[in-house]
């Protein structure tokens, strides 16, 4: 039972990171119907910028508590990623807004390749390790261990998601975003500038991705130019699981995917009599996704919408 609780906790931590990244996918998809393949790379850039800033500060011999250093790194990573998200949309997606959707998918892949290789040239092919500056607080109750970082990750993700929810539901920008998602042309008639809303959407998604990138690199104590690919893939899976285009769905899908994955890693061996080892945790995640989509073809919370031409 302890193992079970432990796996659930690990899954929640992983899942809240997935959810943060998934929100970026789902917001862009909701408005443009575009799979922003470069979003995982934005997460990676966020982690890398933060680590570079922390490394530079430590190199200068700045004597600040670890948490402050990470916060400074985060404060650099967020605007950097927002600028990146804005640029990506401007350069790669806006010229193709009226083109066939697959064309934009290909430019998204192209941007993703460019960002990956740029990061490789700038930060090298090695793993960049997260310096050991965060206090190693841990709570233990009844055989279950929770680290301070895990609590911070879940708390920060929840706070950000609540903030996003408030933004989308309560502010005029949020209303503009929802209107543009329903119909860009009608929204424009109501005095909304769809271009500006789309730019804002990309920047908000990128900011969330930056936070997720920093959290995930702190959690695994390393970052790598290739980390965005798998993280993006998982987050996109989470977004689809919840129903792509649906913000609550992305949160639910992210958390669910994280829990499924860590339970799969823990129990897939015993369940199959040792035939399948924990290497198969990704198989497990995709298998659940496929089963869910077979029974609910538009995801868990997605509405049944007909294909638009």
């Amino acid at each position: 039972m302890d193992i079970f609780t432990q796996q659930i906790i690990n899954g929640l931590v992983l899942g809240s990171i997935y959810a943060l990244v998934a929100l970026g996918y789902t917001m862009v998809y909701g408005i443009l119907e575009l799979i922003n393949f470069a979003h995982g790379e934005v997460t990676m850039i966020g982690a890398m910028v933060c680590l570079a800033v922390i490394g530079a500060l430590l190199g200068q011999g700045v004597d600040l508590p670890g948490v402050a250093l990470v916060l400074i790194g985060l404060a650099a990573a967020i605007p950097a990623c927002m600028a990146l998200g804005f640029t990506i949309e401007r350069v790669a997606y806006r010229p193709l807004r009226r083109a066939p959707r697959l064309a934009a998918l290909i430019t998204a892949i192209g941007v993703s390749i460019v960002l990956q290789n740029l990061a490789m040239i700038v930060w090298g092919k090695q793993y960049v390790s997260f310096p050991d500056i965060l206090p190693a607080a841990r709570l233990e109750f009844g055989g279950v261990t929770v680290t301070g970082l895990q609590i911070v990750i879940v708390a920060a993700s929840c706070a950000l998601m609540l903030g996003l929810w408030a933004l989308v539901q309560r502010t005029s920008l949020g209303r503009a975003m929802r209107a543009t998602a329903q119909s860009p042309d009608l929204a424009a008639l109501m005095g909304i500038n769809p271009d500006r809303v789309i730019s804002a959407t990309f920047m908000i998604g990128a900011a969330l991705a930056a936070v997720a990138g920093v959290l995930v690199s702190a959690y695994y104590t390393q970052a790598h130019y290739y980390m965005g690919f798998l993280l993006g893939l998982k987050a996109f899976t989470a977004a689809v699981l919840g129903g792509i285009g649906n913000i609550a769905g992305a949160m639910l899908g992210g958390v669910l995917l994280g829990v499924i994955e860590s339970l799969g890693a823990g129990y897939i061996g015993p369940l199959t009599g040792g035939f399948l080892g924990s290497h198969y945790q990704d198989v497990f995640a995709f298998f659940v996704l496929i089963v869910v989509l077979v029974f609910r073809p538009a995801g868990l919370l997605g509405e049944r919408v007909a294909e638009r031409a």
Partner: protein
Amino acid sequence: MIERWQKWRQDRRLVWAAYLLLALALALLPFAVGAVAGRGWVRILDFALLYVMLALGLNIVVGYAGLLDLGYIAFYAVGAYLYALLASPHFDLHLPFWLLLPLGALVAGAFGALLGAPTLKLRGDYLAIVTLGFGEIIRIFLTNLNAPVNITNGPQGVNLIDPIAIGPFSFSRSHTFLGVDVPGVHAYYYLFLALTLLVIFVSIRLQDSRIGRAWVAIREDEVAAEAMGINTRNVKLLAFAMGASFGGVSGGLFAGFQGFISPESFNLFESIIVLCMIVLGGMGNIAGVILGAILLTILPEALRYLGELQRAVFGRVLADPADLRMLVFGLALVLIMILRPAGLLPSERRRREFRSDASVLAQEQASLYDAQR
């Protein structure tokens, strides 16, 4: 210009002369390339042909039937592993090539239908993620099926695969024909060329067939297609199976040609690159797909010369060409797509859509959207 082209096409003799010239050029190509750029480039040529077959297979699924498949490389993997396991010392089986080739098409086709079945209800991007998931599942199984029973030899892959041979004629050795020395890579080129031509022929015939038109109808509007009496389930499954069987054939050829395969050759990135080939070349148009496949196979290889280019321009190497290569590749993808959103050689239907007034198109879409509310 177009009129002159059509007049020119009506002249049968000229057309035949053009075909003859093309055939001659294709026949002499490996020798010319080998003489100018070295034998390594003939090998790249062979790979380009493999990718043409692969891309034409995916073109059936994505280009004709409009089903976005991001796990297509799985069928390439199935074909390759089938060949590798049945013709290598791994199980000590050495089945002949002429048996393995159709078997590969059959098994991959069966896999295609099998994986297609649960996705029939899904549309657009949901389909994309499920096919992606299937592709990853197959790759993970290939990586891990070395225990408890060693089937695929795990991440090490399968070694010492039998080279392709028809009877006593092995494609891996040099042969002498009429006093001309034909190395193995050249022999493979001719084999792949023949099979590619066959695949092109099948693609062309499919395009104008009853099935091909049913695929296009489904792509354009599935509900309308169903109303016209098309059995969308069977026709979609057929698209998956057909596309997969092309992938299986080229996978088998890849295994025999390379002599070694490992799960890493079949990752998601490969699926994405094949998709890039068909979108970039011009989806649904056979000439465009061929162009895209050749271009995207040759481009990364040609970019290996970036180091020499830098030395010529700046006098020294500024950035490691190996690092710069994929960066330029990604930039090229973005640039080509922005400059030619419908692909380099768009299909006739696409071109017409693009010529129609954008505002009319938007209006149509808006009214369609209203109708669905």
